[in-house]
């Protein structure tokens, strides 16, 4: 394509781009400004501009020629370079140039009284993150150290500082926060989230509900995930449920992401999802876990965990799911109890350890007396079983009333 471009045409296109940019800033037209900043969308217009820049070589001269453009030169010069570099897949340079342009743009934005360009800031924040991610993938595939995302993190932190004050720009703070969350989660530096969260949640001058819904959902999703890491399941349940409730129903991918965490959290609170939910959102990896919970099938649970170990580890729910083991034990004991009740209703509340061992053996799980005694002790200790264990006779004596209390939304052990 570039080959067929005439010099004049190239100049015209670059001028067109510059003109549009300057006009949109002048007229505070966020819509067109956004499109001009969106590098990674591969819009035909920007691609053409990129080719033109490659052809013309001295695009910067065009900027300096005109008074109109030269005011924005600090933004435009690196921006053109970013567009060009991105076009030729030189992502590291593209990121670098774009960060420069973005920095200049943010400085401009800081000086504007109104927040008209907030949407453009969103685009910048998004673009910088995506560019950084892509640049890092490319860098690491080339064997170089990927540090662009980290740089993007600190840049966005600066942007956050610009927005987080009082005034109309504050609305944009949550968006940047969410972009930061994405970066931090990707980098595995979630501890950095804390400071951002603090400044969002402690600011009393600004009600959380005033933020855009989109950002609220994202924010709740990430903070919910953080609570999963903290094993604070009620809080995680609250946040993720909020996200699910406010999430746009048509954004199924987002709903799935939320459910991916919400389901394990709910499971650990003793609430099981319906099968259709798993199927609808393609979360079948949980189905075996849920089955195991329903049947008291320890082996199934372990298999399910083993099968999806990598996935669960990466998403961070592995430990949550592993803790379901006790609930599976509870279910198993409950089943034995039910069977005993059928056979000998009078002695049903006495569970012999041997029976439990036999049941486990039937599940191909080999455990000795001490271990099972330990499990039972833990179950009683965690309130999953009501009763006591008689060590001498190796018998679990169950309470006559509600020997297997349900969790129903309360965390285990409470």
């Amino acid at each position, binding site marked *: 394509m570039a080959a067929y471009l005439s010099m004049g045409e190239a100049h015209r296109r670059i001028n067109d781009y510059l003109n549009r940019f300057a006009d949109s800033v002048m007229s505070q037209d966020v819509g067109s400004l956004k499109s001009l900043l969106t590098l990674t969308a591969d819009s035909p217009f920007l691609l053409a501009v990129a080719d033109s820049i490659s052809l013309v070589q001295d695009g910067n001269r065009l900027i300096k020629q005109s008074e109109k453009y030269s005011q924005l030169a600090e933004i435009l010069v690196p921006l053109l370079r970013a567009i060009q570099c991105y076009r030729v897949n030189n992502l590291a340079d593209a990121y670098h140039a774009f960060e420069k342009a973005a920095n200049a743009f943010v400085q401009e934005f800081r000086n504007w009284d109104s927040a008209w360009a907030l949407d453009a800031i969103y685009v910048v924040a998004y673009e910088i993150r995506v560019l950084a991610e892509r640049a890092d993938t490319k860098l690491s595939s080339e064997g170089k150290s990927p540090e662009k995302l980290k740089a993007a993190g600190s840049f966005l932190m600066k942007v956050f500082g610009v927005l987080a004050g009082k005034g109309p720009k504050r609305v944009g703070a949550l968006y940047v926060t969410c972009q930061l969350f994405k970066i931090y989660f990707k980098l595995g530096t979630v501890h950095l989230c804390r400071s951002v969260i603090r400044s969002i949640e402690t600011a009393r001058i600004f009600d959380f509900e005033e933020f855009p819904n989109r950002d609220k959902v994202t924010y709740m999703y990430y903070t919910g995930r953080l609570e999963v890491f*903290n094993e604070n399941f009620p809080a995680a349940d609250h946040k993720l449920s909020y996200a699910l409730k406010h999430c746009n129903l048509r954004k199924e991918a987002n709903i799935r992401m939320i459910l991916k965490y919400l389901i394990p959290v709910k499971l650990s609170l003793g609430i099981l999802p319906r099968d259709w939910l798993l199927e609808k959102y393609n979360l079948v990896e949980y189905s075996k876990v849920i089955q195991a919970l329903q049947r008291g099938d320890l082996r199934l649970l372990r298999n399910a965990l083993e099968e999806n170990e990598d996935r669960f*580890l990466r998403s961070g729910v592995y*430990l949550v799911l*592993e803790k379901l083991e006790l609930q599976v034990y509870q279910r198993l004991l409950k089943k034995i109890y039910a069977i005993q009740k059928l056979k000998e209703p009078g002695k049903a509340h006495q569970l012999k350890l041997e029976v439990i061992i036999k049941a486990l053996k039937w599940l191909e799980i080999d455990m000795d007396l001490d271990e099972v005694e*330990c499990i039972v*002790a*833990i179950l009683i200790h965690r309130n999953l079983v009501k009763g*006591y264990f008689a*060590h001498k006779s190796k018998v679990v004596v169950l309470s006559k009333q509600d020997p297997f209390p349900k969790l129903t939304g309360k965390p285990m052990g409470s």
Partner: protein
Amino acid sequence: MNQREKLFPPGTSPLEDRHVLEVRHDQSTSYPYSGTPTEASSWPTYGVDNSHTQNGFPSNSTYGYEQHVLPPQKDSVNGATEASSLSLGSTSIGQDYNGYMTYQNSTDSSGYGNTGYTGYYSGYQQQPQNSYAQPVAAYQSTNYQSPAGYSNSNYSNQTSQWNGTTYSSYTQYPYSNYPPASTSAYSSSNASVSSAHYQPQYNQWAEHYAQAEVSCAPGTEKLSVTAASLVESVNSGISHGTMISNQPTAPVAATWKPDTGSLEVPPPQPSGTVGIGYDAYWKQTTSGYLNHHTPSGQSNYLQPSGAKAAYSNYPEEQKSAYNQSNMQYPQVPQSHQLSGQINTSATIQSVSRVQIPTNPRIVSNLALGLTKTEKAAPEGKPAYMSVSFPKTNEKTLMGDATNSTLKHGAFPKSLRGYVERALARCKGDAQIAASQAVMKEIITNATADGTLHTRDWDAEPLFPLPDVDNLSKESLTPISLRLFKKSPTRRTKSRWEPLAEEKLAGESIPKNNNAIRYGGWKQATARDQKALVDSSEDKEDMVQAPSISNGEHKFANFQKRFKKPRLSVNITATENEDASSDSDKDVNLTAEERKKRESRSKRFDKGRGNHVEKGYVKPKVAGSANLYPRRATAQVLSKALDDSGSRAVEDIDWDALTVRGTSQEIEKRYLRLTSAPDPATVRPEEVLEKAVLMVQNSQKNYLYKCDQLKSIRQDLTVQRIRNHLTVKVYEIHARLALEVRDLAEYNQCQSQLKTLYAEGIEGCHMEFTAYGLLSVILHSHNIRDLLSLMSRLSSDAKQNDAVRHALAVRRAVTSGNYVMFFRLYKTAPNMNSCIMDQYADKMRYRAVTCICKSHRPTVPVSYIAQVLGFTHTVAATDGNDEKESDGLEECAGWLKAHGACLISDNSGETQLDSKASASTLYVPEPEDAVAHGDASLAVDDFLARAPS
């Protein structure tokens, strides 16, 4: 000082005073002063006052005055030669600029920092109309305000002024030396100004010099002689006058009178003596002392003084030097000449200067300078020469004053007065020296028989004046020596400058056996001075003392006093006090602070050293070995600076400086480095390998091994060795640390190993992966870390026994499965159990709480002991019962310690009453608890646990 001021009729305007002074200055030959002793006494003070004139009006007046005076002077003098230079001074600045342009360039190339000059420049701009005031103003605008005042005073006044000038120029010198890089550090001064500013500065100096010439011209020949003899006495007079404000008039007058006399009829002898002295110094030139100060400046001085008998020689010498230096700095000659003239004039003015040559330190400098000039003006610091020379002057003066100050500081005032009086009547160095010797004896005797403080010194008759003729030859040298020794100490210092000088001075004592008389005093100098300054309530008396004793002091005081004229001679005591207290601050710096500053400024020092002493960096290093605690850094840096010119420390290519050890010692104690490593104490890799073996086979305790391993690690690090040996050392150390539960050390090793493994260096990766997992699980409890660790485990790793064990432990811990945990504890591979060990107690407590809640009614302790790992693995092989019972007791003890309720059942077996215990369990305070929370840091306990 106030008193001095008061001596003048209140009506007298500063300008007038200056006039008088000026006259005197210009006609130094005849010394009109002699007639007016009072004024003479006030003289030193006076200079001070003038110098204080701040940028504004006083300097102006001075300038104007100067102009007037100069022409006649010129006429009267035979200084036709100097006429040209004079004209230079009086001509427009612009001309000067042109002339010095070149010079400036050369300076730059030699790596001058511009810092010092920037200030000047700005000042210059501020007062462009007043060429003389410029330097002053400039200086003031810079941080170092006082020097500015000095430069001003130079013109208006004589000796003291000259000193001042010296000072300013001197001050300028060190700063200019700083490498440009350091400018930032100097931020207080105007770093922002560009190098170009140096130029104007230069002009000003040139002007100064020109003027100096003029003044010198008249005195030239005579002066050189006269000054030599007289100066000493004058000096002492000055200092004394300063010292003892109570009797300022008398001593000063006395001092001056002889001066005049001698001036008129210069005694031939002193000059001869001086000459000898000089010779001696020249000889001393040798090497040895390499000062920080610019030697070149002194060399200049030396030349004139040395040549003084035959002054005509001087220019020639200059020329030769000049020619050589010409190569590099075309402008040098000019400055040279100027400086030369200054020197001469200096001779006239600063009585004290005569002593300069005597000081071994300076002598060495001189020698150096000389060599330089004669040889090839080595790095051609001509500018410095001229500049620095005056400094010497100043110093001497100061030294003098200090000397006496110090001496008398500890003594009653009356005694001081006595000494002053005694010295005041002396003519020339020789006499002073002799008198001092006598006095010292007197004082010593007085001290010995306890009458020092009781005797009425005021009434004490003066001892007969010693015979100078006899004494002069022998005594002159020592005296001047003493004076000189001091001078390095007294150098004007910025707060940034290191205190090295003081050290130097201190150390010069032992070196110079010459410090015959005043060695003792000298040593005391710094401290005494401080004490003196501190203790003196009588600021008026002491004002001069501190100023003399410390460059900053002086400046501060001077400045304050400089304001006096402006305030119509009404300076208040408070002001003075302010000044001195201000300056006290610096004097009172704690030793630590001084050290800090020293080290901070060391790099500047280095940089400067490089510039100044480029020609002889090596000797410098050698010399400094004695002066500074010897540091490898010095070598490395000086080397680096040698070839890198003005590079800042930060820019040094450390790669090129990576140490290659040469030490063959296998055993080495660990000492945390505080400077760059010295290759002589670093072991190369082969030796380190032996050292590792030695540690491995050592039977000594952990502390010893840890120490050795740390030193090995250090040697590896400084040599940047990262290979299997490095991994091995860290692994050994980590295991040892685990063994004795030294978690801090273990963590260090573990984190190092992590990066080493990541670099692909082979080692026991799996073993330490397992350790890593275990410590995250058991100690940090960071779920996020744990997850990322687990997710990064390769399938190979998961097959590894140690890793699998660690993962199983994790499972047991997260589920609270104590049975599993203690089974794993017993079967732990490698040193996994060592990490688990630290968690065992917690796990036991968790288990017992769990058991107490779930089991009814009782649980046998034997079961608990078995389940909670109180039985030892050894028990399994044989002697089962015995060992088990051991475990039982231990378990029962542990349970009791945690508040469990134990009962005996019918069969006599100890049982845990779970229901009763459930509410009484608690975690006892650890017996080895320490205030700082880490028991492993308690030395006694640590030693007890360490397998020796």
